[in-house]
């Protein structure tokens, strides 16, 4: 056994299209493109952890061979600074040589639904400009956030959340190879938590395995430890009327843990219906509603610290009124 270890999401990532455990329909259609050695622009859409990026890489490997990476430009819309950087990188890349036998290179644009409508328009022009030498693969969680003119230029592939059998089967496969002791029910629990997100399922398995035998208990323990305590603490402090302490927790999450306002909103929302949060039942819906409003404002570009502070102030008031 090697002393080096990788994250299992990297170690067990499928390398070829045939290794992909689900998305059979998608895979069959893509294999036809490989046979013809030609692809149109593609749009891969579906929830996180369903294999979109993995499939894109596998496709490129089958087209170009093991050194496919020199013919692939990977960009992530969330990490690049605006459409100008993307334009410059694509321009530079389009100038480089193509592989023998395949007259185009691939630009992989991940999380493209995080681009503004304007940036997507610019992207559309970019695709037209370099259409002779490049193909784009756009990856998105929400296809509805991709503007129509872009959608119409791409062959659309829908990725679906993985089934219980597929996730549990893969976890078993990994556990056997890694000599991990496990209970069958624990793998079911992991599936329930992952909601069909394979990346999450595998990360939970690895974290639970590092704690010892993988049991239902150790799975929940690993998940509980991974979730920042500060989120629930923040909610509880706010509801108890301790606004300033709640905001301290908020800033710890955003500044020390590096979470964005949107991440914090999503994690708060997860806590709202948790039985561990002791609040009157009818408040859960009120809170979810308000969190939704704040979430919307943040996606509109409003200052997240101010919006979340307003949410905490509202919770303080709700808590005070409930105590009366």
């Amino acid at each position, binding site marked *: 056994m090697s002393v080096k*270890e990788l994250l299992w999401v990297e170690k067990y990532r499928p390398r070829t299209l045939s290794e992909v455990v689900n998305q059979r329909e998608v895979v069959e259609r893509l294999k036809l493109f490989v046979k013809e050695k030609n692809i149109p622009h593609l749009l891969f859409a579906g929830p996180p952890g369903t294999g979109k990026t993995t499939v894109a890489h596998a496709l490129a490997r089958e087209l170009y061979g093991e050194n496919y990476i020199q013919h692939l430009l990977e960009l992530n819309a969330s990490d690049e600074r605006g459409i100008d950087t993307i334009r410059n990188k694509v321009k530079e890349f389009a100038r480089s040589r193509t592989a023998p036998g395949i007259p185009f290179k691939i630009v992989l644009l991940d999380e493209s639904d995080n681009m503004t409508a304007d940036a997507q328009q610019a992207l559309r022009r970019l695709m037209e400009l370099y259409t002779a030498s490049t193909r784009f693969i756009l990856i998105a969680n929400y296809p509805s956030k991709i503007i129509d003119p872009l959608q119409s230029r791409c062959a659309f592939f829908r990725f679906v959340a993985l089934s219980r059998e597929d996730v549990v089967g893969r976890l078993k496969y990994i556990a056997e190879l890694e000599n991990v002791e496990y209970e069958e029910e624990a793998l079911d629990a992991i599936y329930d938590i992952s909601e069909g997100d394979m990346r999450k399922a595998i990360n939970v398995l*690895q974290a639970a395995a*590092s704690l010892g035998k993988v049991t239902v208990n150790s799975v929940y323990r690993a998940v509980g430890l991974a979730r920042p305590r500060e989120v629930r603490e923040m909610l509880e402090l706010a509801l108890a009327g301790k606004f300033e302490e709640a905001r301290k927790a908020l*800033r710890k999450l955003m500044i020390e843990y*590096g979470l964005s306002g949107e991440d914090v909103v999503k994690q708060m929302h997860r806590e709202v219906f948790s039985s561990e949060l002791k609040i009157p039942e009818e408040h859960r819906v009120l809170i979810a509603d308000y969190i939704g409003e704040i979430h919307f404002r943040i996606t509109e570009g409003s200052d997240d610290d101010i*919006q979340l502070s307003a949410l905490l*102030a*509202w919770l303080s008031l709700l*808590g005070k009124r409930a105590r009366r």
Partner: protein
Amino acid sequence: MKELPWIVKHRPKRVDEVVDQEEAKREIGLWLEAWLKGSPPREKGLLLYGPPGVGKTSLVEAFVKERDLELLELNASDSRRREELERIVGVAAARRPLRKRLMVILMDEVDGIDPRADEGGIEFLASVLERTVNPIIMTANDPWKESLRPLRERSKLVAFRELTEAQVVTLLQSICEKERLKCDKEALGLIARRNRGDARAAINDLQAVAERGEVRLELVEKLVKGREKSLDIWRTLSELFYAEEGWRAKRAVTQSEEDYESLMAWINDNIPKKYKDPEDLYRAYDALARASLMLSRAKATGEWSFLRYVFDLMGPGVALAKKGEVSKERFSFPERIRAMAETKSMREVREELAALLAKRLLTSKATVKTEVLPYLFVIFRQGSPEAAAKLTLGYPFSSEMLKLLAGARASEIAALAEKLRGTKGEGRREEKRERRGLDKFLM
């Protein structure tokens, strides 16, 4: 002949004549003591910050007089471009003290140094702070300005507190006695109130009133209107939070010299200081959040006429949210800006780690931060040390990254990783590159 301005005439001559600021007195005293003993402190500059008129400059001058030091003073009216500073400060900073008489270099209002008009001034001053043989003291109202970062990083920061109304009244009374002036206590109270915490402005007003006759309430009401000119941040905040009428609150935000985005950050942090009742707190935040929303709409649409609603909401909206009392707690600097500065290196390490893993896991840094790092933390902090050590060999983590991941267990895991590597000699050459980070822990 016109009389000497009272703020000059009645300037404190001894340290204990300066009102309040006990903590600042102690810190400045200790810092100067080190210089006088011939062992300059690690930070050769002091940055005194706080609202205007609370005694920053006066206290330095009092120290200079009391300890019989020399003083070189440069204030905002002098040009502070690089060439000027080189000529004056550069020379003074390099001059060995004569007859052991230390020279204090006082740079007033460094937040007023204009990055354009006074080009290169801040950078030069920062370089002087590294090599000066004389103590350098700077003052600022707002030390958190981005342009002041080079000075902030090379100086010891000393906070000055806003004066209370009672403290200002006491000070005015003592001046009235020295001037043998009949002063009505209520009148002094009103002068103090209209100049919230700014002793200099209050003394100026007192003199202006005294020149017209007895200091009585009616006269003060007629003459002292509060200042119309642009408002610095401290005055903006007090005008805003104490405003009872909408127009007053609106004037506070529109006449503020702080730009509206930073002003929002200041208001954001000071609402909970001034409003303690959850009802008031909620109403104020509701207004501020809507101001911020309106601003994002103005930006998104390019319709800058929306700004008027931004001002309505962040000014009157916040001011009129109060039904209860305004708390006496002092205004404070935006905590978020301070925290961002303090945690900068840690956040950089986190970004680097996220970038490294994003590349290997074919995903974005954002996804790594929310979906991968939390599980890595579990493995490195609670999981078996062996699992963590093996991952450490699998990725080129720097020692800072390992420290971030494992916290107190970092050195244990680094040592274990090294031991594991020793037992199996495979792939040594390719691992060489990755070792550098770990070695730091083992030396």
